[in-house]
């Protein structure tokens, strides 16, 4: 039995706690039991710098008592301590104001109990169980390239800091209405940050990573990629302010999708804290923009069978041909607002491609455009959608003969309104990275305000 998986005794403790809560004043109760184990080996400049071993466990109660509601959690699972905890929690809920909209989800909406992470291809138990401290150390050292990089007259490598980690996580949700669902998944990850200095002592750094539920699919060339990215930044500076087409790389394109997904959250809509209020069913984006939720993408991180209430996830459009098709509405917000209940949040957003590779789109570009491959701070106003982000990347220009000249840029800002930006989408490319939770390829926007 893998140490990081829930044991029979732990599951039994959760089942007993549910019965105890129901027998001692809770009208309804949901229990979420989680456990995870993560081992990490950190490498600094080709040497092992850090080793960690993290085993976590928590039990969370959502208690519905006399028309009132509260949430309580503990990492102490012994029976007597839990019973005392539950009695105190029930007493606390009774002090709160009534809220008639709180309820468990109806049974027809919850996930099937016979499905688990294995059904989504999220478990590589064999590889996980074969891991030993020595293997982890060897993999981490082997992934480091610090001692293998030849000296270069143009730059000096200051540091290479990498981390290999593997983990297993297990979640079990039960409630007094009969919900019983569980998902187990493994993850293997290697991330690295490389800092270099050019011949004048100016520093440049870059980081990248790879992650996969399956060990054999984990890329091992991450360090070289980070060095390449850092070297490409040498000589970077701000370029002239103006309106340019923006080619937003697939390594960071989901950054401009996330605020839109947040604004579709039922709680934000109910609180009027969203620029997507009153947009359901309306066409507010271009015809060619379709965003799907694909929670069942096999073997991809972010895939899940159920949400935090145990409600079964399903594939479907969030934005279809520019029309808003879905808000993310849990049972509470649905009861409170009358909006149709869906799931509490998106699982895996996928922007449906409208084009092939980025080069095929920019082949038609004349003049200057900016290729953005990293963000540095910024924000989007949740109420208005107005945004301003720090960005870096390359300014690209088509020279005579069709050749493209690229120069690195930094200390640039993009400013605008998110809905206006997405309405200026020129193309969504077909190059999404499998390692990312949200599947968003390179995005190309017209007329973006850059200042530098």
């Amino acid at each position, binding site marked *: 039995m893998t140490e990081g998986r829930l044991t029979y005794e732990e599951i039994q403790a959760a089942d007993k706690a549910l019965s105890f809560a129901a027998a001692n004043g809770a009208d309804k109760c949901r229990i979420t039991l989680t456990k995870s184990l993560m081992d990490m080996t950190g490498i600094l400049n080709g040497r092992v*710098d850090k080793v960690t071993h993290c*085993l976590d466990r928590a039990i969370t109660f959502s208690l519905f008592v006399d028309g009132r509601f509260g949430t309580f959690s503990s990492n102490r699972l012994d029976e007597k301590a839990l019973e005392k905890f539950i009695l105190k929690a029930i007493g606390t809920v009774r002090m709160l104001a009534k809220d008639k909209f709180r309820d468990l989800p109806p049974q027809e909406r919850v996930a099937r109990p016979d499905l688990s992470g294995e059904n989504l291809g999220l478990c590589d138990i064999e590889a996980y169980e074969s891991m030993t401290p020595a293997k982890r150390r060897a993999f981490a050292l082997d992934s480091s390239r610090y001692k293998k990089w030849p000296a270069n007259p143009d730059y000096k490598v200051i540091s290479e800091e990498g981390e290999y980690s593997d983990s297993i996580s297990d979640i079990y949700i039960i409630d007094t209405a009969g919900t019983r669902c569980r998902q187990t998944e493994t993850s293997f990850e290697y991330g690295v940050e490389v800092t270099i200095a050019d011949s004048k002592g100016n520093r440049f750094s870059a980081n990248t990573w790879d992650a996969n539920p399956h060990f054999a699919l984990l890329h091992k060339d991450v360090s070289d990629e980070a060095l390449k990215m850092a070297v490409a930044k040498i000589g970077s500076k701000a370029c002239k302010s103006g309106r340019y087409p923006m080619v937003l790389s697939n390594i960071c394109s989901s950054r401009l999708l996330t605020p839109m997904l947040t604004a579709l959250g039922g709680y934000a809509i109910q609180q009027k804290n969203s620029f997507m209020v009153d947009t359901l069913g309306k066409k507010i984006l271009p015809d060619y923009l379709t965003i799907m939720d694909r929670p069942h993408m096999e073997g991809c991180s972010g895939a899940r069978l159920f949400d935090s209430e145990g409600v079964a996830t399903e594939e479907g459009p969030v934005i279809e041909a520019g029309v808003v098709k879905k808000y993310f509405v849990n049972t509470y917000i649905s009861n409170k607002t009358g909006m149709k209940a869906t799931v509490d949040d998106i699982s895996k957003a996928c922007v449906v491609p409208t084009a092939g590779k980025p080069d095929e789109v920019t082949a038609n570009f004349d003049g200057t455009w900016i290729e953005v491959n990293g963000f540095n701070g910024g924000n989007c106003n949740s109420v208005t959608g107005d945004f301003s982000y720090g960005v870096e990347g390359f300014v690209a220009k088509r020279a005579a003969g069709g050749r493209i000249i690229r120069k690195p840029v930094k200390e640039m800002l993009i400013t605008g309104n998110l809905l206006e930006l997405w309405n200026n989408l020129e193309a969504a490319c077909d190059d999404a990275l499998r390692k990312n939770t949200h599947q968003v390829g390179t995005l190309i926007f017209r007329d973006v305000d850059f200042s530098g």
Partner: protein
Amino acid sequence: MIQSKKYYLDTFGVTEEQLRAITETAMATGGSYADLFFENTSYSDLMLRDGEVTSGGFHIDYGVGIRVLKGERTGYAYAESTDMAAMLSAAKAASAISRGDRPADGSIADSKGYVPRLYRGAPNPAADRYPILKDWRTASASEFIPILNKLKDMIQQRDPRIIKITAVLQDQVSDIMMYNIYGELKYETRPMGTLAVSVIFSDGKTTQSSHVSRSYRMGAEMLTDEVLSELADKAVRNLDDRFAARRPKGGKMPVVMGAGASGILLHEAMGHAFEADFIRKKQSVFSGKLGKKVCDENISIVDDGTIRGNRGSINFDDEGVPAQRTYMVENGILTSFLHDRVSARHFKVAPTGNGRRESFRFAPIPRMRATYMESGNSRPEDIIASVRKGIFVDEFSNGQVKIGEGDFTFFVKSGYLIENGRLTMPIKDINVIGNGPKALADIVAVGNDSIVDECAWTCGKEQSAPVSCGIPTVLINNLTVGGE
């Protein structure tokens, strides 16, 4: 608050003999230092939403973190139980960092270099910076619900454009006990209370929002009418200007930062680059600059863990090192980095009490406490009057910095255009972007009005930690402002 040694040993169900046995296991494979960090934290929260306090709860987090150092390398593991078997298992996992390094004669490796025995004995009660007058743990939720309702009423009556109010009260009390291979036993109880409010306003045409908070390392005595009134005032402050605010034209220009909360720029853009783990790894842009002039001689920057009741204050850090007031920059000279025991050993200096961690689940690393710039000589109104065309910023959020390059970006929540020495059009939703060392060198005026902000600032370097920040009114000569 510091209670008796027995209270902490009983809380974690251990004896001093057991503590010794665990550290011996941790050191058995040749480590050069080991320590234990016990934590029993209880959190509570109450939320007022749509006019009533309809949700709340409490949470318990309990366990022990075990760290083994071998030179500057770290092995770390933790157990969520303090039974001996679980702790010994974690000690063995942490000792993996030094596996195979045990000297051939079987002796414990040389542990010199980890500042041994500087902080012997029981904590000094005189240094207690957060005595708890009213313990959150013994108070009932029913005592706090009327306070949230009162706060809601105070806000509601301040402006008719309010359409939604959300108020959250969170409290946290942690019993902490630390033990290391030198037999040093430290213990204390750390409180934290946070009151936060979000308000949505509408004038029928547009919608605006404000988010304000107050947070103190104090017991429930922090919930005074004065604090409620201050929060209510701040939630609706400059509301007409919020509705009128526009994006200015962007470009390079002088930026005046208002006193107090603008100190977040100091924390992000300069403070992180002073943390000695980044210096040890040579990743910081300030590496190799100790003792050098980095800015105007009127500037002194402090990281302070000694302010009574402050969110960033500690009696001692999470390695048992007493908190102190550390000058990072004194009269323009870079005088100290912020150290934990690992970086202090590397640089052969005393640790500065900055070894902090989110919880027993994390190994300590150098972290800031309350970071601020001391007051200078200029009057704030003279600083503004000296600018022909620029912006005045009174609230930042969402800052980010790249430690290697020093490049930073900050989102301006609110501020004003400065035209011919006067504040004119209200501005919002823009970014300022620059480079930390360059911005520091470009500060040309420092106000006489330094304030340490009391909002619920949380630093997110690998793990979260409560901090504070502050600054006087300052003028930075040349920053890039993103605008229309």
